[in-house]
């Protein structure tokens, strides 16, 4: 009986304590990053290298994901449009969900899985092999050298990939509309363009910017906090992707609440 009562409380308590520790640590890291940016004190060469590396790692998976997101949204929207007979809303429905809601969430999750997880693994490996200590011993600040370039690269790339991903989602939607739903692609694309979805598109980019911040800060924080060899690195990547997924849904909610879009 006692366990039934205390169990859930202690689970929630422990989860909240963990949440507070993560939030506090990540906020402090963000503060240190911002301090290193004003005035800019970070390694430009490393920033270029990170931009290239992040782009190469994530562009293929984001584009393929976007194709399927568009495809799935067409199928789901078509189901409702068929039942209600409101064919004119197909373009709006697809465009709205892809630009403002499901597109950002799924592209953000994929980016977090590919780039965020990889970043935690890389930094974690540098910590357990003492490469971060070696940087400090060479009197090089790990924040300015390792973290800030990754922070910049992830924000820039997340924005670019979201802009590009929206295009691929529309392509995926058009292809599926043609083959599965029997709607001419040019009609669908015309509908989407006529639906005045600029606000939705900008909201998606705004979300991408915030995802970029949270993915880079959280993944760096978990990476730099790794303890205990190969097992520690694996566990840190696990924690990092979980925290990032929760952050993505939270940001999505807050942004959608602050900036209402639509008709």
């Amino acid at each position, binding site marked *: 009986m006692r366990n039934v009562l205390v169990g859930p409380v202690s*689970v929630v308590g422990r989860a909240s304590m963990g949440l507070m520790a993560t939030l506090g640590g990540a906020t402090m890291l963000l503060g240190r990053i911002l301090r290193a940016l004003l005035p800019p004190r970070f390694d430009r060469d490393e920033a270029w290298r990170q931009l290239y590396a992040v782009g190469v790692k994530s562009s293929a*998976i984001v584009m393929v*994901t976007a194709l399927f997101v568009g495809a799935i949204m067409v199928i789901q929207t078509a189901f409702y449009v068929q039942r209600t007979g409101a064919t004119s809303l197909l373009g709006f429905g697809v465009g709205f969900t892809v630009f403002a809601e499901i597109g950002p969430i799924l592209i953000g999750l994929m980016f977090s899985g*590919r780039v965020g997880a990889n970043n935690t693994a890389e930094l974690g490996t540098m910590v357990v092999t003492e490469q971060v200590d070696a940087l400090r011993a060479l009197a090089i600040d790990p924040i300015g050298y390792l973290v800030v370039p990754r922070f910049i690269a992830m924000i820039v790339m997340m924005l670019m990939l979201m802009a590009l991903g929206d295009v691929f989602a529309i392509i995926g939607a058009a292809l599926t509309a043609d083959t599965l739903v029997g709607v001419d692609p040019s009609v669908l694309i015309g509908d989407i363009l006529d639906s005045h979805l600029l606000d939705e598109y900008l909201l998606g980019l705004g979300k991408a910017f915030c995802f970029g911040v949270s993915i880079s800060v959280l993944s760096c924080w978990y990476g730099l906090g790794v303890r205990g060899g190969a097992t520690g690195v694996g566990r840190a990547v696990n924690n990092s992707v979980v925290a990032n997924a929760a952050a993505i849904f939270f940001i999505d909610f807050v942004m959608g609440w602050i900036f209402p879009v639509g008709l």
Partner: protein
Amino acid sequence: MNAALERGFRAVGAPLVAVGSHAFGIYSVFAQVVMALLKGAVRWREVVRQSYLIGNRSLFFITVTLGFLGLISVYQVASQIQRILPDFTMMGPAFIQLMWREFAPTITGLMIATRVGSGIAAEIGSMVVTEQVDALRMCNADPVRYLIVPRTIASTVMVMMLTIYAVFIATIAGMVLADVVFNVSPSTFVSLSMVSGQDVVLGLVKALSFGFWIPIVAGQAGLSASGGSAGVGWATTRAVVASSFAVILLDFIISGIGYTVFDL
């Protein structure tokens, strides 16, 4: 000219070869899992333990993510309805239907791919690089049967359970928001009038296939880890990407077949 041509072929070919060998690796783990299941060689005690780790331990995570998803989708949809036709009677039923058909299974699948997929790869990957998997082989314990089969069964059952839970949580969150912000009474919002048996079946088929494939894809990534902590990190990353992508791909295939063949 030839050198440029060769470089071009390499740039296109190398990723294709990598994806191909990756897919073959997943297929081979899949075949071994099926063989083990057919033979009935299952460690049920381990299945129960993994079910707890995969299912119960994900409750908090699913509550947070699906809760926010429920809040924001109802908010978005209700704001649109408020501006065109202020009639909220259909919103709740349609929301619950869409959750069953699409979002509860897919988002739950993605969350489990993230949390459990990376966990499986991290655990098995660490065992590989510390040669514990070789030690298993030396004791004549097949790593796939020993490690991946119990996780596959557990996750298949648990993702279905969590999907039902996810519908529940998203509905509660949406209901509260609709009541507080748009004055839609809970009795109007919560209605299963639009949810057909077919919708439920479609949702559960999705959940079942996501649950079945996530441990296979992630386990294969873990088993192919090599070379210390960098290798484990890389395997974990690959597990997250590959199992999330598997969820999206399966969702597309099942939705597509459902729509075209069964008119779902």
